[in-house]
């Protein structure tokens, strides 16, 4: 029982530890939790006290009070003050949650100045304007990640991966989240909040991982029958290893494309014209 209680308390806060924004959300959560617990104990305590102290007893006469304007104005103002304080607290924490920091000195050199193709007020960039931008594409029921390094126009020829995203440590990674079919939601709990992938829209978030490791998550908005299996993972590796992985991925994709083209041509020859797409 003690064990259960201990783990419950340890788990009664959001996941964090992967990225500074997740840590800041966690600390804002803990302050709110403290305030909420105090209010809960006071109100619930008052209720229980009233029930015990003023239970019907022989000879007890109920006071015929209809209200107390001063008291009522008092607690209305008190409630408002608590909420104003909470709002101020949130605003002081907001920039550390929303605004990505610069990459560390030992981050990946692939971080580039991000050019905006489309005007956006909600896309946040680090102060020096440099980040590793990865496009996250949600589709039933798999996540696709497109990395920088396009060889042709419109991001074509860029290396990509499915389900597992590989990123360099100490590097600010900005995500550009889109969907190709229904609404999905990108979420890796230890790396910060979740953001919907909505067809026709871009949504943005970021993370910066200092500790190499595997961070897991999954789609958070109902997207169909396979929703529960639309999992995601982010693997953080040292920058050198990341760059090596990325170029290997690029080569493998190019090889696979070439092999597929060959196979299509072969198949087209066997089946006759018009049977195979892009022969």
């Amino acid at each position, binding site marked *: 029982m003690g064990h259960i209680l201990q783990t*419950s308390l340890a*788990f*009664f*806060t*959001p*996941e964090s530890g992967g990225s500074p924004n997740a840590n*800041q959300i966690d600390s*804002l959560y803990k302050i709110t*939790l403290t305030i*909420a617990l105090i209010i*809960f104990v006071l*109100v619930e305590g*008052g*209720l229980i006290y*009233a029930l015990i102290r*003023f*239970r*019907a007893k022989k000879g*007890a006469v*109920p006071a*015929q*009070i209809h*209200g*107390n304007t001063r*008291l*009522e104005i008092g*607690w*209305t103002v008190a*409630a*408002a003050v608590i*909420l104003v304080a*909470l709002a101020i607290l*949130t605003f002081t924490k907001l920039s550390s*949650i*929303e605004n990505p920091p610069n990459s560390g000195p030992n981050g990946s050199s692939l971080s580039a100045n991000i050019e905006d193709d489309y005007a956006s*007020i*909600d896309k946040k960039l680090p102060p020096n304007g440099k980040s590793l931008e990865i496009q996250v594409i949600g589709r*039933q029921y798999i996540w696709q990640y497109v990395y920088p390094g396009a060889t042709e126009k419109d991001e074509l020829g860029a290396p990509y991966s499915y389900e597992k995203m590989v990123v360099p440590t100490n590097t600010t990674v900005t995500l550009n989240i889109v969907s190709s*079919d*229904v*609404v999905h*939601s990108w*979420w890796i*709990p230890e790396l*910060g*909040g*979740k953001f*919907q992938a*909505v*067809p*026709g*829209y871009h949504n943005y978030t970021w993370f910066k991982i200092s500790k190499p490791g595997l961070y*897991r998550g999954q*789609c*958070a*908005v*109902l997207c169909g*029958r396979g*929703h*529960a299996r639309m999992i995601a993972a982010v693997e953080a590796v040292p920058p050198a290893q990341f760059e090596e992985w990325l170029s290997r991925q690029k080569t493998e994709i190019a090889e696979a494309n070439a092999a597929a083209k060959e196979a299509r041509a072969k198949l087209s020859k066997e089946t006759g014209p018009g049977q195979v797409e892009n022969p």
Partner: protein
Amino acid sequence: MATYAAPVPQVAAHKVEREKESWTSWITTTDHKRIGIMYMVTTFVFFCLGGIEALMIRLQLGAPNNTLVTPTTYNQLFTMHGTTMVFLFIVPFMAGLGNYFLPLMIGARDMAFPRLNALSYWLLLAGGIVFYASIFWNPPEAGWVSFVPLANATYSPSGGEDAWIYLIHLTGISSLVGAINFYATIANMRTRGMSWGRLPLFVWTILTYSVLLIIALPVVAGAVTMLLTERHFGTHFFDPAEGGSPILWQHLFWFFGHPEVYIMVLPGFGVISEVLPVFGRKPIFGYKAIAASTVAIAFLGFLTWAHHMFTAPIPEAILVFVMLSSYFIAVPTGVKILNWVATLWRGTVEFRTPLLFCVGAISIFLIGGLSGVFLATFPIDWQLNETYFVVAHLHFVLMGGAVMPIFAAIYYWFPKVTGRMLSEGLGRLSFALMFLGILTTFLIQHVIGLDGMPRRVYEYNNVGHLHLYNLISTVGSFIIAAGVLATIVNVLHSLKKGTVAGPDPWRANTLEWFTTSPPPVNNFDVLPLVRSSEPMKDIRREVERRTLGPAPGSGATVPAGARQVGV
């Protein structure tokens, strides 16, 4: 059954014949009491169906990687569960309570439009039947929020989604007609002396409920009509490829969906505000503050819908505005809770079942209200949105704000409807099981969500202690079910075998207790002038003074229609 030394006022005579007890008299009735009973019985059946769906959901989640139901069935189960509880149980059950008690509480003989009232009920039943008929073909599976594009014809080709649309339409028209009826009744049919400042607080909440329905329902009706034409007639309201927007659906749905929360909980608050003073033997603390906070919550409720969309791509200015408006709504809600505690303070609290359910409701709602502050803070919501933390939050809000008050209402008003008391023993058992069950099921769900488990998933891996936590929640859900079952047994048993209640078994404050139990078709032959917000207290005092007082003939008269019975 307790007996009281004080005399009990009672209506003198009834010249109106009782309605016949044949089935045709039930399906053709326009009597608000019979329609109210049909509402409550029908919606309670849907509550049981929605509850069975919930138990199947919990059974599936009781073990990691469980294969009890298929992913498709699972999606259908939670879609049916959510839709049933919102559209076929809580909202129409409140309408049933309003139907039965609102005319009695304001001293009217019926609703303003009795035939429209019958129409409301039959539309509701039609909506329920259309919706549940889909289980014989393909039930809907896009969730009770039916987000597009998932709910459009490409991704949800089955007719289940259309059944869902027709349910929204039919129950929507039902509620709209009913809401107009409630409003007209309250505005026009109050008895002599029943000014706005003397209106029972339950009636205030039904008034607010009606206004909310009248404003919010046309919006969702428009949205589901757009979905219907999108699915079948080639429109592109929500299709970005054709210049539409999936976010438009989220805005329209939540513009209705958030006020819907208050539509569900405000009448529950009304029940609490009626029951506490009766069993605390003390007037409600701050009548005006409670009535005003009801109206304030309703107004602010229309400014907060986008807090359901904090993770959607919407401008940050909206996030900030909605966070502040959501904080703001916590003020009138908190005021209500403090007023209730103050109502019990220095009273003489009698622990009868209706009071127990109300006190339980306040405790549970308090947890739901406080967890709402986390969700209103948008950076925190980015972590908690769409997880089991939200599932826990909404169940604490609705269990505390609506379900527990509905059970309080059942125990409080059953004697009036049937003329018989419910068993206190079974009532206490039912309360204890439901209260503990709710805490067991939903407290742990906060932790499940914080650990990263999203809602609406049919399976999970046993990471950390997810299996243990989910198992606790599943056990809790069956405890709730046992509690509900105890009340069902209690009702069925007491219908015939319960102690005879008499007109006013609780020594209550409002006018429904002035007439016989069950009330005659015309409710009252005559009514005394209402002189305060607690007319029955005045009437009892007057009878007492007349019976026991020193000097008869001092000018005051016994209220017309009131007759003393044995001391």
